[in-house]
């Protein structure tokens, strides 16, 4: 069906009427438009999850003449109930920018030359084979993404871990979610949140821990605000290091000094115990107390290694540990008044209030990321406010499938789709399902993300294949890793949809299908798996990342492990992958069910989704005969950890006297490679900037828009100042969004990480400012 002028006018007429209806009848939905028969077919609609954050909003993609032309919220999706944010509404425009990569390219004599994609795939297979022959199996690597579909990550893991025998598989979710994972594993022995978004409809108190939800998870934030408007007993507290739109909308904004959330969380626990707000029935039945190593380092040197050691302690020892964290002592460390610490403790401690804590990058991108996750769980566990509607410590995800593809499929060096490479039982399961010899799967993890790029720089890795991510913008201490990738005997393959600083360092560029140009699944923050069909055709020779990997695997001789045809491979992969999660703790929905619904939550047992885990009323995996069963741990108890406050890896001093904090804005997705090609989003925020406190700006003699040089021990960047913009940092801190490749702020940041999760801290390093 061709979109001629007349059809376009009819589409405009219909859109105008739908928009008017939306204004006159708030909440009006026209979701069943596509089901009408005998209509003109002006536009047809198909469901998909949005790809621009981890919320997992259901969208309906309007297609006309084979082109995605419109987006609306899916009223049948419980996540967003028909609402979208500005990125969601404009998302399909990201498919059609003029410089879309549609053909493969190979570097020949220093120039990128277009070639048929088959030639590029042949070269990739040949390079992998020869590199492994010459330098060993661990000289090749794949680096993927929380924007990989579940099948993308699954075939990557199967090829590299199962067939090639290297654990050099990592994904950019290491940079955004790893501390959440290790937080869950150390506190509960099993990954991903116990609650769900429905908690928002029950909670009386929301505390956002270093989490600008208004910009990062706007649809969920709207749901929180709607609850506050509808019910008269809802309070929102923003606990953060800078003032943001979230602070403006909150009932109370409390600022803390960077890194000192550790101390404040302990002070809250101190207050809860001191005032006897402990839920003893819950604690005695379901909690045990532990401590780990301290002074654990920051990982800034190559080959850094750390292994924590848990020791059991009793409640009295835990109570003594907390004596260092009285509100009065912590006020001096954190800058948070003792009164405000006591206020937050009282909210958590009030048995009549249901409390949900939200966090995302502020707690995860933290050199003690695992610890601060543990400490917020401690608070909820002490008062028994967990795993029940409205009582939820809730770690939000940044990317659409960080949970689905990275955490569930296990696309990290130590992981398998079920369990870890170090566990023989888990390796046996993988070898059997993958139909590979057990010896193929190496029991030793290799490199986490930062160390993987260090290995590329050192030359321990010679070949790396990067898919659906842009590390040459996102790696901290970026210059080292870009220079490393450019070294002579490194071979870099990049699969992407647009040119980026990462394709700039590539030897081969593969044109990738984007989002709804392929069939796939994502997994969102609340354990919801969301299927989408191929709704429009990919341009030129672009193909899905999954199929690219299958093509290379077959060229390497693994036809038996990758036997599927192109018209059925996603369904077949899903059903193979499901075998890893069989059982009530993680059962996934069948392919046929996923295709029908706007997402299905796991564990999906006997046709029923599980909304609250570890609670016997809702979770079929509970078997201990009690009201709660924290079955991830051998002792069936959740673990409270004594974790101290330790300072950041780098902090302001006489020479570098400002904190640098980096992050995102609502208009742009990560490095901006897609959203900067959407005119309305690009025009809204056309370039990055440095937020400076007005008093600091006055001292520097800088006015809004003037250029400022930000200098650290690693590099410098000069960019325009933003004073009294949407975000205002406190004195002594600057904030820079990282979406703009023209201002590579990660040349300034530090590659220190949490020694347990190996997740870097993008929120804290020391810089100085100069008027440019």
């Amino acid at each position, binding site marked *: 069906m061709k979109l001629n002028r007349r059809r376009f*006018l009819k589409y405009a007429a219909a859109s105008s*009427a739908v928009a*008017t*209806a939306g204004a006159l009848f708030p909440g*009006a939905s026209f979701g069943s438009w596509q089901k009408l028969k005998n209509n*003109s077919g002006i536009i047809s609609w198909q469901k998909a999850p949005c790809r621009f954050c981890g919320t997992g909003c259901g969208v309906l993609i309007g297609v006309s003449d084979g082109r995605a032309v419109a987006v609306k919220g899916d009223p049948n999706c419980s996540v967003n109930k028909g609402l979208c944010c500005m990125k969601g509404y404009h998302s399909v425009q990201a498919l059609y920018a003029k410089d879309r990569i549609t053909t493969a390219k190979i570097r020949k004599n220093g120039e990128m030359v277009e070639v048929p994609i088959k030639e590029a795939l042949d070269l990739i297979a040949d390079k992998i084979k020869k590199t492994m022959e010459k330098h060993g199996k661990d000289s090749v690597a794949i680096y993927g993404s929380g924007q990989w579909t579940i099948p993308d990550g699954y075939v990557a893991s199967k090829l590299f871990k199962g067939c090639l025998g290297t654990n050099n598989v990592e994904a950019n979710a290491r940079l955004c979610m790893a501390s959440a994972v290790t937080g869950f594993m150390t506190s509960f022995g099993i990954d991903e949140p116990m609650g769900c978004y429905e908690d928002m409809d029950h909670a009386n108190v929301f505390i956002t821990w270093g989490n600008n939800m208004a910009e990062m998870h706007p649809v969920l934030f709207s749901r929180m605000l709607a609850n506050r408007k509808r019910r008269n007993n809802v309070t929102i507290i923003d606990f953060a290091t800078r003032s943001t739109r979230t602070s403006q909308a909150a009932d109370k904004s409390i600022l803390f000094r960077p890194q000192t959330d550790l101390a404040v969380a302990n002070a809250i626990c101190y207050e809860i115990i001191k005032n006897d707000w402990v839920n003893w029935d819950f604690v005695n039945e379901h909690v045990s107390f532990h401590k780990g190593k301290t002074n654990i380092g920051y990982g800034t040197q190559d080959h850094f290694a750390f292994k924590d050691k848990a020791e059991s302690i009793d409640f009295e020892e835990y109570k003594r540990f907390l004596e260092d964290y009285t509100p009065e002592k912590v006020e001096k460390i954190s800058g948070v008044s003792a009164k405000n610490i006591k206020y937050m403790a009282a909210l958590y401690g009030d048995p009549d209030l249901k409390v949900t804590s939200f966090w995302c990058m502020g707690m995860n991108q933290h050199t003690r990321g695992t610890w601060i996750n543990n400490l917020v769980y401690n608070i909820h566990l002490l008062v028994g406010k967990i795993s029940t509607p409205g009582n939820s410590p809730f770690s939000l995800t940044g990317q659409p499938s960080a949970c689905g593809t990275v955490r569930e499929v296990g696309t990290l060096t130590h992981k398998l789709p079920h369990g870890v490479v170090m566990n023989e039982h888990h390796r046996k399961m993988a070898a059997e399902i993958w139909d590979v010899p057990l010896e193929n799967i190496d029991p030793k993890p290799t490199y986490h993300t930062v160390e993987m790029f260090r290995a590329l720089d050192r030359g321990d890795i010679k070949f790396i294949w990067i898919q659906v991510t842009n590390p040459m913008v996102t790696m901290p201490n970026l210059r080292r890793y870009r220079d490393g990738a450019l070294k002579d005997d490194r071979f870099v393959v990049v699969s992407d949809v647009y040119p980026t600083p990462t394709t700039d360092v590539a030897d081969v560029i593969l044109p990738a299908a984007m989002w709804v140009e392929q069939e796939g699944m994502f997994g969102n923050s609340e354990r919801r798996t969301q299927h989408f069909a191929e709704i429009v055709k990919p341009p030129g020779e672009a193909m899905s990342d999954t199929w690219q990997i299958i093509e290379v695997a077959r060229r390497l001789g693994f036809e038996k492990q990758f036997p599927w045809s192109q018209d059925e491979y996603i369904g077949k992969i899903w059903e193979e992958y499901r075998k890893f999660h069989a059982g009530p703790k993680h059962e996934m929905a069948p392919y046929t069910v996923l295709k029908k619904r706007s997402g299905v939550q796991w564990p999906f047992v006997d046709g029923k989704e599980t909304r609250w885990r570890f609670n016997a009323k809702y979770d079929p995996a509970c078997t201990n005969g009690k009201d709660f069963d924290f079955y991830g741990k051998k002792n069936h108890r959740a673990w409270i950890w004594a974790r101290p406050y330790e300072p950041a890896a780098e902090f302001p001093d006489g020479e570098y006297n400002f904190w640098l904090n980096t992050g995102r804005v609502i208009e742009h997705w990560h490095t901006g490679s897609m959203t900067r090609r959407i005119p309305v989003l690009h025009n809204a925020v056309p370039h990055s900037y440095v937020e400076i406190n007005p008093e600091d700006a006055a001292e520097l003699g800088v006015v809004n828009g003037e250029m400022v040089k930000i200098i650290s021990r690693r590099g410098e960047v000069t960019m325009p100042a933003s004073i009294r913009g949407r975000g205002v940092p406190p004195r002594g801190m600057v904030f820079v969004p990282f979406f703009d490749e023209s201002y590579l702020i990660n040349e300034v940041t530090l590659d220190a990480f949490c020694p347990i999760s190996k997740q870097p801290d993008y929120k804290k390093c020391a810089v100085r400012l100069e008027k440019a």
Partner: protein
Amino acid sequence: MPIFSYLAIPANGAKEMLCADLASLSHCEVIPSDNREVVVLVTDTPDKATEEKLQEKLKQLQTLQSLSLTFGYDDEKIKEKLR
């Protein structure tokens, strides 16, 4: 060759019947709301005479309470302006 779109408000409880009535008319496309008592109507007629006949038929519908124009385009009028 005019193209118009309207918000059609059904008589009380008659949304489904209104959709059926409108869909049975030539040159009409109907998009009902899933959750509100409102229907989007897009008309595309080949000439002025047909348009006038359609307008008459719309006026006679018992299931239609009101019709509000939201978009209008007419080739002929544009041509007249250009002359």
